[in-house]
């Protein structure tokens, strides 16, 4: 079973008289442990696809299976629980809460998961160490650099050990050197077996992924890189490292 299986997704917005297909029949399969980039110019539908993959939105038609579960039929509450447990978001603008400390920001998804304090203390400390911010746990976001803020956001995304990490232009608000550091962190996370989905228009960022999906006009028009065979093990995202992916295949039209 694939981690994510999307079949002929359509997302249609009605703008007055005419309809706009933000997604125009997208099919995509993502395996456990994959490192994938979704690329495309603005308006290509990559954000819409990301929202559906992230269970923030549901398609107008088509089927979206997450771990074999059809999410199009889930209620608001079930979607919230799914996002909480299985998806870690990293945003371009970090989206940290300004009035909360680093620790509290990272802790938030665990609070919604109903975890108790000692468990939170333990895991948040570990996550902050993982992103190299142990010394900044009591600082507020306005006392952090852009790179540090994004590390906090990554720690927050990792905290509930989600099945996938969805990063939307994670380096868009960072200078190039900091961007490289953040991409290095993502590469490490992928190396450790986390499933990573980068959404970006930046080819330099996308190059870090092992597979690149190009989108235009609501369709996937090109896939670069391997689509590995379904992983045998469904080990946790922070679990055993995946074997390196096979060498990139030549450009082939997907779907």
């Amino acid at each position, binding site marked *: 079973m694939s981690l994510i299986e999307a079949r002929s997704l359509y997302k249609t917005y009605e703008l007055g008289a005419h309809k706009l297909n933000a997604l125009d029949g997208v099919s995509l399969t993502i395996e456990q442990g994959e490192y994938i980039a979704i690329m495309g110019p603005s308006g290509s539908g990559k954000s819409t696809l990301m929202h559906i993959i992230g269970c923030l939105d549901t398609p107008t038609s088509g089927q979206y299976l997450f771990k074999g579960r059809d999410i199009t039929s889930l209620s608001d509450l079930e979607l919230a629980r799914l996002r*909480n447990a299985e998806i870690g978001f990293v945003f371009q603008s970090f989206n940290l809460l300004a*009035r909360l400390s680093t620790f509290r920001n990272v802790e938030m*998804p665990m609070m919604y998961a109903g975890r108790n304090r000692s468990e939170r203390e333990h895991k948040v400390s570990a996550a902050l160490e993982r992103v190299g911010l142990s010394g900044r746990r009591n600082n507020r976001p306005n006392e952090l650099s852009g790179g540090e803020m994004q590390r906090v956001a990554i720690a927050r995304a990792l905290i509930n050990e989600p099945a996938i990490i969805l990063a939307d232009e994670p380096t868009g608000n960072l200078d190039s050197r900091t961007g490289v550091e953040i991409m290095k962190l993502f590469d490490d996370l992928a190396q450790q077996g986390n499933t990573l989905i980068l959404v970006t228009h930046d080819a330099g960022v996308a190059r870090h992924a092992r597979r690149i999906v190009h989108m235009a006009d609501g369709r996937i028009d090109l896939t670069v890189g391997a689509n590995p065979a379904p992983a045998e093990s469904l080990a946790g995202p922070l679990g055993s490292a995946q074997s390196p992916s096979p060498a990139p295949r030549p450009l082939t039209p997907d779907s």
Partner: protein
Amino acid sequence: MKFLDLIRTALAGFRAHKLRAFLTVLGIVIGVMTVISILSLIQGMNASVEKQIQSLGSNTILVAKATFGMGQIDVEEISKRKDLTVEDAEAIAQLPAVKMVSPVRSRQLGSVRYRGRKATQVEVDGVNADYELVGNYLVESGRFITRDDYLRRASVCVIGSYVVDNLFPNEDPIGKQLSLGNSRFVIIGVLQQKGSFLGQSMDAVIFIPFTTFELSFPKAVGPGSWFGMQIQVMARSTEQIDKAVDQIRELLRRRRGLTFDKPDNFGMHTQEQIRDIYRNITGVAFIVMIAVAAISLLVGGIGIMNIMLVSVTERTKEIGLRKAIGASSQNILLQFLTEAVILSGIGGLIGVGLGLGIAGIVSAVTPLKAAAPIWTIFLGFGFSAVVGIFFGIYPANRAARLNPIQALRCE
């Protein structure tokens, strides 16, 4: 999300806007403060009035041509009623449930003078020897009117402390003479201070024998005389008051020749009735207070709703983020609702504190023993929390319904 986390999340919400949070709850603070302080004052007044009622004399019943009260009074009918008589008083004194009786006739004097000094608004009462006990007066020096004074129609008087203070500030009044009506009276006694009843001083009095009163003030006019002669009765015990009232009513109806189909053409007051009248007055004050409190809580609640709506708008992005990382609509609803309830609850607590403070100050600087009963504290706090829920539900619901994608996009 755990309850404590919910509270902590909500508290973090106002830490960023302390002044705004304070201003928001000001309406609630003022409302609750008003309720608590006025309740305390009423409570203090109750205690003080109760003491005053007690001081009127225990187990007393006042019989008069008419009674004052809350009902409609037909002045013309009352003015045609027959006066009570000394014989009526003597007959009442014989009743089994009655211990003693004094006839009372009163005259309000604009002023009483003594060697250039003046005491204004003094009431002269013609009473008998038993009035000392019936009226619950204590003699400070000298003596009260005796049975002998009464029978001899002696020109003697006993004066209240107000009269002493105004006419004899530096000398012993005993033995001095006062000119009252068309006679001169020798002062034989001075009364202990009694305070005031419902704002009226009970010390601006001069007692003279009832028999003498009729000579000195032959034609009684003025507000005190409108009731004609009154009879103040002391029942044998508190339990016998009702019995005494029944016996007096039966006796007077017979003496005044009333057939069974006629209503009483006289009236009676017991302390219980005076209490009832007082309770009616404070009941009105109570209702007015509740209305004031309700209005200020309403205004306070609207203030909270307003600021919560602003807060939801300001924090749209936060709501989007919280939803993205796994907050359900219910989580968001509870978060904002908790904020509203904590805001109004804190307002309620501050209000309770200030209200108690005002009560404390009043007790400290006035004789009124203002004190809030414990339940008012819970009431004040509880009501403000309910206001928080009521006015918080709409903004919280609005926050909960936000679409996470649009909310995240919001800057």
